[in-house]
């Protein structure tokens, strides 16, 4: 009953405040749109390529500094291999047919693989051409020799013809490549992989800021104290806040997901329910964190000062820069960031099609974050009323 009244009040206040409402719903879309147009990044990465039954000459040609070759012989499907070992791609050969399966959740890696394969094929063709020229030269030399001999003794069978036919063996195999994508298609850009991370961050950031400032306002105007002069339970206040802002976070998430799907044409491999679940959890963490952080702020201005400390560093560890390639101590910091788990789970669902049984460790950690901050909040409110 009281919780419902709390929720209703949070919603009423929010709906009256048109600007905050606009910030919560339009600003994320604006940011995503900007990012969509801005983001065309390329950096030095190494892509893992698994090869199976591929001619060693081709493998050798494809290999370069940006590609790490793994030889596999198992009969698992390419999809399975990628899922188990996180290969950027798997290449399989049958006769002259090459099948390239790209994970494609990191488009930079996909393009490295594709470029390396192309370069490899060109290299092989060049080698073959050189070899052919060499054979032809030899053959011509032989023919000339034979011609001179023929002038001396006519009617001899030459083996130059046989040499000529040998060229076939030296010529480059004309591999036909068929490419498969696990996530997205050939039009998938970096943005597609970036989006799930962005989605998580945007929800986190706005919920953190708005809920934090809302509770802060409640503190500075004295309404929190006034509220605690009623028989309301501390838990009811926090639950009211959680549910009220949770509803907004849910609407925000839906808006972002639908906008991404229909405007940017983003493909979501996993279940959309998992996407919503992760976002709602992210919102819960942001909410409890925002409410808690606001305890340490005396004004809205001080609340804003927490953004560079609390919100921005989360972005660095959200997977935009691959965390597993960071220094050990940096990775340790990354593991303290809720967004690291949220963005990880989100990327897994959106780009790899993971289901709930595969993302549950991340989900669990997010729940844990929310629970810890919830308890901290209940204790922080104790400052105002000791029961």
């Amino acid at each position, binding site marked *: 009953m009281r919780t419902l009244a709390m929720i209703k009040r949070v919603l*009423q206040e929010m709906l009256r405040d048109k600007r905050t409402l606009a910030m919560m719903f339009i600003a994320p879309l604006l940011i995503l749109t900007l990012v969509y147009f801005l983001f065309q990044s390329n950096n030095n990465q190494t892509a893992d390529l698994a090869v199976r039954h591929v001619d060693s000459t081709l493998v050798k040609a494809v290999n370069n500094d940006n590609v790490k070759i793994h030889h596999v012989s198992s009969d698992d499907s390419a999809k399975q291999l990628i899922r188990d070992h996180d290969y950027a791609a798997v290449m399989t050969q049958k006769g002259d047919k090459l099948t390239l399966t790209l994970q494609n959740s990191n488009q930079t890696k996909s393009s490295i693989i594709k470029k390396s394969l192309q370069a490899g094929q060109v290299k092989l063709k060049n080698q073959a051409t050189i070899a052919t020229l060499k054979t032809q030269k030899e053959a011509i030399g032989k023919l000339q020799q034979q011609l001179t001999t023929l002038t001396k003794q006519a009617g001899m069978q030459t083996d130059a013809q046989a040499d000529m036919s040998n060229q076939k063996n030296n010529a480059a195999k004309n591999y036909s490549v068929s490419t498969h994508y696990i996530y997205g298609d050939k039009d998938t850009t970096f943005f597609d992989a970036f989006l799930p991370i962005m989605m998580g961050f945007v929800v986190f950031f706005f919920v953190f800021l708005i809920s934090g400032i809302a509770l802060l306002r409640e503190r500075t105007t004295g309404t929190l104290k006034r509220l605690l002069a*009623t*028989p309301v339970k501390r838990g009811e206040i926090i639950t009211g806040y959680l549910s009220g802002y949770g509803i907004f976070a849910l609407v925000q998430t839906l808006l972002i997901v639908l906008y991404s799907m229909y405007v940017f044409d983003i493909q979501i491999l996993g279940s959309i329910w998992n996407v919503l679940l992760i976002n709602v959890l992210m919102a819960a963490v942001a909410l409890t964190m925002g409410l808690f952080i606001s305890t340490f702020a005396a004004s809205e201005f001080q609340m804003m000062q927490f953004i560079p400390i609390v919100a921005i560093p989360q972005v660095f560890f959200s997977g935009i820069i691959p965390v597993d390639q960071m220094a050990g101590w940096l990775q340790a910091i990354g593991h303290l960031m809720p967004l690291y788990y949220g963005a990880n789970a989100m990327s897994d669902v959106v780009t790899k099609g993971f289901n709930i049984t595969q993302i549950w460790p991340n989900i669990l950690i997010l729940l844990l974050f929310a629970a810890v901050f919830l308890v901290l909040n209940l204790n922080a409110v104790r400052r*105002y009323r000791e029961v």
Partner: protein
Amino acid sequence: MAEVIQVTDLVQGYGKNIVISDINLSVSSGEILGLIGPSGSGKTTLINSIMGMLKPKKGSVTVLGTTMPNRKILARIGFMAQADALYETLTARENLTFFGQMQGMDTKDLPEQIDYATNVVSLNEDLDKHVGDYSGGMKRRLSLAIALVANPDILILDEPTVGIDPELRQQIWQELHRLSQKGKTILLTTHVMDDAEESDSLLMIRNGIAIAQGRPEQLIKEFGVNNIEEVFVKAGRDQDAHTSND
């Protein structure tokens, strides 16, 4: 008359800082007790202790026979804070409804009670205006209406008459007297000596210590002065004399 609020040997403060000490007071049912003291004297701390927002450092606070702090007792206390703690984006009616529900009121009683409470403070015309558009005095009145809305047994009012014009002040006092006759217990803090004279009994606090306590006319007689203001000044001098002797 039963003791509704009983404070015994209360010592209260924040951290190591002692704000009030050795406060004894009892308010019986239907009584109006005025707390008088300069700002910073510890009136609000005493009120916070009675409301159970703070645990007593020493001594005890009992409200309606229950030792405070106790969350459930708060349902029977109507509170008006010193600062107007209102949701400015909401209308007066929404504020009243929200706090009424927080107080644990039945939804079906709300319209009638809102009508009554706003009548007392003459706000019924502006009930559907946003509180952000209210004047300072109107906000004060709305705060009082919020204290009244749940028909509580006890009213605790922190500076209820600040910023309220004399005519309305009289109207409010009429209502407070009417409520006390109906057996409601009222505790209020004030700077205004007129308010003090309207109270049934007084507790004067200075520097966290009770310097005088009793019925207004009894205090005037005891100190041999003409009005409450002079009682306060004289009691204050006595206190200074005592402390400098120590």
